[in-house]
């Protein structure tokens, strides 16, 4: 079997680096051009096993030279569909690296390949056996591929001619993947990288929810879990859908329970108030409930000033972090602002009242047009009074909530006083303005007490709450 090819094929050659010294030729890469592309093709348009080379072959290339290089694989099969293209394409990277003396790096139009002098010395003189080996591996390892044909191009003009079309294909793929949502998949991914300092943190990564650090999306989770299922990123079977809007799934709840050692048994992925996602400490943005306006503000780690509640990012982050479910605060990754499910069980963008300008600008394109100008920044509102005025003036949807609530509790009529900003959690400093009752959402259904402080200035050294003996 191995005798068919002038090289060895084995996964043990993955990670083999071909240094400049040992390189016969360099193909594509940062200093040249090229791409790799897999295309789902109708069965009758493929001649199985056919290889076509456009441009000079390996034997015509001088030692130490660099050439443009493109690889196109047409695949067909009853189960082959366009959505599989990128997954199959990724395997070209694996399979070419299985070949001794071949180094394949990166993907799409950033591919970078080197062929070693040793491989050439052992008789590799053409690209054909490489293409044949890859096609063989495609069919062996991905049995849904029934027919495969390869075209390699080393001619610059030919590569440049096709480049725009190829980029358009990648782009349409990206548009499709951006359109992937929680309901389209049956697996989410978890990440425990933060558990070293937030031991009960349960980071759940879904198509509609990026990791809190902003670094890991659902596809990254999938890629990592596939390579190392026991690694820091792993699969979470979604289980039963308990609440589509809040984003509650039995699989996530089960995982929350085991990862947090029983501390939490429910997580609503798209809720701010009820059983919210835990917050690790490395989240990019922290959201904070502002009881005075019944809205949510967001502040990111690059914002040095204080939010309208009088607190800077660092204070709120310190309070929120550590892997807890902290009602009233929520750590998120910036990309979550772009999610169509962004805190949807609490009203989504209609509930957002404040964010720093640079953060707002960064996600502006994804803020619904009718709300964008109604979200205040530090330029519009630096404190609660100016925030309230701004929201009223812009007729922010939150204003309607005030009216409803005011009707419900007409007895609460209080003069507004300047709200002192002190570094206590806003949820404890309930100072309702103009008759807005302090309605802290609670994560427990067991009665308890409701404390409303009006026009209070409180300074407490220490509060100890103990169960009666």
């Amino acid at each position, binding site marked *: 079997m191995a005798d068919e090819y002038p090289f060895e094929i084995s996964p043990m050659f*993955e990670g083999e680096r071909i240094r400049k010294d040992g390189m016969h030729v360099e193909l594509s890469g940062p200093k040249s051009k090229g791409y790799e592309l897999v295309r789902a093709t109708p069965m009758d348009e493929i001649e199985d096993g056919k290889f076509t080379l456009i441009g000079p072959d390996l034997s015509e290339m001088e030692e130490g030279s660099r050439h443009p290089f493109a690889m196109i694989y047409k695949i067909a099969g009853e189960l082959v569909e366009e959505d599989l293209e990128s997954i199959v394409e*990724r395997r070209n990277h694996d399979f070419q690296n299985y070949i001794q003396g071949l180094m394949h790096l990166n993907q799409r139009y950033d591919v970078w390949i080197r062929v070693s002098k040793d491989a050439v010395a052992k008789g590799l003189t053409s690209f054909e056996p490489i293409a044949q080996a890859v096609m063989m591996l495609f069919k062996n390892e991905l049995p849904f591929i029934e027919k495969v044909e390869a075209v390699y191009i080393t001619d610059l003009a030919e590569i440049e001619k096709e480049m725009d079309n190829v980029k358009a294909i990648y782009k349409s793929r990206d548009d499709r*993947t951006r359109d992937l949502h929680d309901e389209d998949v049956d697996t989410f991914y978890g990440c425990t990288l933060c558990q070293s300092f937030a031991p009960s943190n349960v980071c759940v990564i879904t198509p509609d929810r990026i990791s809190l*650090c902003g670094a890991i999306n659902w596809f990254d989770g999938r890629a990592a879990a596939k390579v190392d299922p026991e690694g820091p990123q792993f699969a979470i079977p979604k289980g039963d859908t308990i609440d589509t809007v809040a984003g509650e799934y039995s699989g996530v709840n089960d995982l929350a329970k085991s990862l947090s050692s029983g501390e939490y048994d429910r997580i609503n992925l798209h809720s701010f108030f009820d059983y919210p996602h835990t917050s690790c400490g490395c989240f990019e943005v922290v959201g904070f409930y502002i009881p005075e306006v019944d809205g949510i503000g967001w502040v990111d780690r690059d914002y040095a000033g204080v939010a309208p509640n009088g607190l800077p990012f660092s204070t709120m982050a310190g309070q929120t972090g550590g892997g807890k479910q902290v009602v009233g605060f929520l750590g998120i990754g910036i990309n979550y602002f772009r999610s169509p499910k962004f805190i949807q069980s609490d009203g989504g963008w209609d509930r957002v009242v404040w964010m720093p300008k640079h953060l707002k600008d960064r996600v502006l394109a994804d803020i619904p047009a009718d709300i964008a100008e109604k979200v205040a920044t530090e330029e519009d509102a630096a404190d609660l009074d100016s925030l309230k005025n701004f929201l009223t003036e812009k007729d922010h949807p939150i204003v309607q909530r005030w009216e409803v609530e005011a009707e419900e509790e007409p007895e609460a009529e209080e003069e507004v006083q300047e709200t002192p900003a002190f570094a206590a959690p806003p949820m404890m400093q309930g100072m309702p303005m103009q008759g807005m009752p302090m309605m802290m959402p609670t994560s427990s259904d067991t009665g308890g007490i409701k404390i409303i402080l009006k026009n209070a200035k409180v300074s407490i050294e220490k509060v100890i709450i103990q169960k009666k003996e």
Partner: protein
Amino acid sequence: MTKVIAITGKGGTGKTAITTLLIRHLTKTNKVVLAIDADPDTNLPETLGCEVAKTVGDMKQFMQDERDNLPPDINKESILESKIYEILEEMPKYDLIVMGRPEGSGCYCYVNNLLRGILDRFVKNYDVVIIDTEAGLEHFSRKMIRDVDDLIVVTDGSRRGLRTAERIRDLTEELDTNVKNIVVVANKVTDTNRTEIERTADELNLELIGTVPVDSVIAERDLKGIPLFDLPDDSVAVQEVDKIAKKLGL
């Protein structure tokens, strides 16, 4: 098997000079060498005489900055790997990589985790890896480099230099890094301080495996910013470092 040697020590003791001469020695053998400059001060390229434009730190930052702009299902490990290969300075007998700038304010857990995997695979391609690192051993504490065969602590004639060696020894134990062997090399040694250095090393229970004499040629080249890599074979420092390399089985 790849042999990993790290060189550290108090600032100004000449660890980069010793590193350079070790690399010089290794390139005269038939070994394939990877040089890693893990000192944020980044002097190694200059003493080796090569130019490095970009660092691992720059590439990590690129990943941080671009992460929301990249196609959603792109393989980020593969991008970072390619970026690391791109910044590698490929010299005739060795490759050089510079760790560079410290991290920014965001969370680097993910990118560091990717980098760990990439470096693990990457270093296996070399016979010897030589790491020039600052005394804080940051890249070891982050487990960027997991296993070290020999940790060479370079000291000058001062008691402080040897004290640093002692602290580094304790630190490696605290960090839970896998360092097999810690040795000390005294640099800029003169006839007057030699005995004192030997006595202090002994007192602190440090294994002194070499004493590199003061070399006026090195001092002059340092002053003028001329590389040390091409020092002549008859330089006293070169000869002593060759001896040290042999003691370490290089």
